[in-house]
């Protein structure tokens, strides 16, 4: 949500600077840790994040209750008699009241037992072990690539606002931003797999079968995720940089010292703009996670997204529950990380002074 991003950024900036000096001189390691503004911030955010995750898990559980399809019926088989289904229901504990089942699921989840798939009967933790690395690799590569693409583009565009490079970057990014990632994926397949035959259209090759085959199978999915994100970041960063260049007093100071334009961009303007970008990136992790679901589907990648979609279609409650929770937790922790990064990067917070 591009419009939604600027306000939390401003909010966070003020929130971070609120963590003023503790007042007393800390002594010893423990006191210093307790007095560390960064750690205090982490602690305070965790106080919000942990209850949030519990509420999220409860909401996911409620949603699963509403999912169509009867897990006991699925486990017992479609031609099972009513008594057999009832027996399976009891055996799975589905006849117990909702809050009891939630608590036992929670207890299991905290001790590393996430239940098992009603469809395949395999443990959810085993499934995660197979699927999570694929998604992590894809999302991680897309994330890095989007930053690597967007930074130079934004800096080059902001070097001369309204110039040829700027206009080119802005027009291209505006157009590419309008291509949804699943359309981007199909267009890439059309050109590089169907047309040129350079890359595989679908499928995933594990890293164990060689780095190059693995990379080849990753190129198109990663590109379809990274390109729209890169356009989004580049446009935001360019806008923020130009604003800094036009309005900030420290830029005028740097200019009057005779600092070169690139140096000003990189060392002065970008350092300040990076905070806004950081917030945007954190908020966008949710979109990235959502994107992996549909991209994995198109490229038949055996990742978390495919696992969740298969689960949703076949009412595999235990699997969907875990996947949805992990996706939500990933987004929550990404934002926590952004808050902490703020504190670490912002000297006012790092040194505990305004």
């Amino acid at each position: 949500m591009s419009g939604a991003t600027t306000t939390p950024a401003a909010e966070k900036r003020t929130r971070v600077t609120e963590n003023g000096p503790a007042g007393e001189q800390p002594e010893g390691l423990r006191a210093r840790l307790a007095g560390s503004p960064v750690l205090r911030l982490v602690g305070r955010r965790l106080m919000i994040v942990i209850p949030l995750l519990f509420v999220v898990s409860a909401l996911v559980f409620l949603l699963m209750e509403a999912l169509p399809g009867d897990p006991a019926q699925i486990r017992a088989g479609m031609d099972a008699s009513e008594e057999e289904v009832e027996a399976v229901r009891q055996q799975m504990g589905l006849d117990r009241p909702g809050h009891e089942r939630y608590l036992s699921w929670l207890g299991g989840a905290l001790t590393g037992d996430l239940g098992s798939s009603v469809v395949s009967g395999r443990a959810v933790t085993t499934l995660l072990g197979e699927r999570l690395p694929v998604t992590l690799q894809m999302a991680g590569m897309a994330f890095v690539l989007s930053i690597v693409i967007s930074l130079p583009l934004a800096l080059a565009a902001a070097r001369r606002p309204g110039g040829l490079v700027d206009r080119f970057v802005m027009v291209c990014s505006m157009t590419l931003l309008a291509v949804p990632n699943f359309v981007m994926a199909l267009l890439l397949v059309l050109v590089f797999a169907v047309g040129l035959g350079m890359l595989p259209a679908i499928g995933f090759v594990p890293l164990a079968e060689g780095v190059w085959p693995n990379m080849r199978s990753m190129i198109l999915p990663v590109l379809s995720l990274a390109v729209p994100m890169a356009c989004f970041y580049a446009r935001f960063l360019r806008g923020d940089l130009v604003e800094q260049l036009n309005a900030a007093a420290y830029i005028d100071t740097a200019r009057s010292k005779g600092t070169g334009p690139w140096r000003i961009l990189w060392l002065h303007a970008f350092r300040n703009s990076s905070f806004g970008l950081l917030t945007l990136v954190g908020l966008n992790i949710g979109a990235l996670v959502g994107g992996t679901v549909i991209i994995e589907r198109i490229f038949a990648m055996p990742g978390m997204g495919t696992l969740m979609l298969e689960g949703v279609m076949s009412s595999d409650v235990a699997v969907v529950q875990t996947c949805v929770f992990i996706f939500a937790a990933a987004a929550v922790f990404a934002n926590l990380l952004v808050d902490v990064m703020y504190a670490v990067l912002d000297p006012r917070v790092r040194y505990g002074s305004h």
Partner: protein
Amino acid sequence: MAVTSPPGSATLSPAPLAGSATRWSSFRRRLTIWISGSVVALLVITCYLGPFVLPIPSPVGGNVLDSGLSPGSPGHPLGTDVNGNDVLSRLIHGGRSSLTVGVVVNIIGLAIGGTVGAISAYLGGRADSIIMRALDVLIAFPSLVLVIVLAQILGPSLPNTILALSAFSIPAVARISRAATLKVMSMPYLQAAELSGSPWWRILSRHVVPNIVPQLTTFAMLGMAIVVVTEGALSFLGLGIPPPRPSWGNMIFEAQQSMSATPLLVLWPSIALLVTVLSFNLLGESIRDEVTGR
């Protein structure tokens, strides 16, 4: 906002050229608004009036014997799909579904989310933090993941797609509405209204709402683009608008299966999506810049 920093404040600008440059950029911005606005208007007219005015066949119930006709075939300017349905007709009817979903979801988002955000900011204190924490829970979910699960729970249909998509539109709008209301509440005219003893509903309806509506409608333009894309993604996954009713998303999915033989069938709905999203984005961004005077 626009009053404090007008775009043409050339006297403060460092370079002598800035005056004409600013005028040029504000002219270009207006031009962008006009062009993208016209495209949006054209899309709306084509999708809603087209089926009644244009001589196009029905989007469903085509004859399989007519399947896979190439573009330019008599009676089928863009050809036919695998089921023998006219592609142009499906594009137009699909656009109708997409735009309907987009408009209704945004209206729901603005009405509910906008109200919740404004009230939350106005009440402040504990009520505000409870409401915002509740929204945080919804915002914690990656939007597509939440929408997928909701869509499956509700079952695939047009009204259910709208409901599922509203689940991520409402909290997003609420946040923006809250931030905008907070800004308005720090303004002197609001304190004046409070001091003069206006009741809370009067302050909200006469002072707060008129001042946050421009920002919210601008966001709704960008929101249109997001909703149209998400609806496309949902229908592409088979969880949105169910076939045979056309939607750009389910058209792309159908075409994907015979992509190497008939790539054009993927391209048409993709281009339709691109043009729609692009014009809403351009419209939203340039109106926002116009309003904030950047």
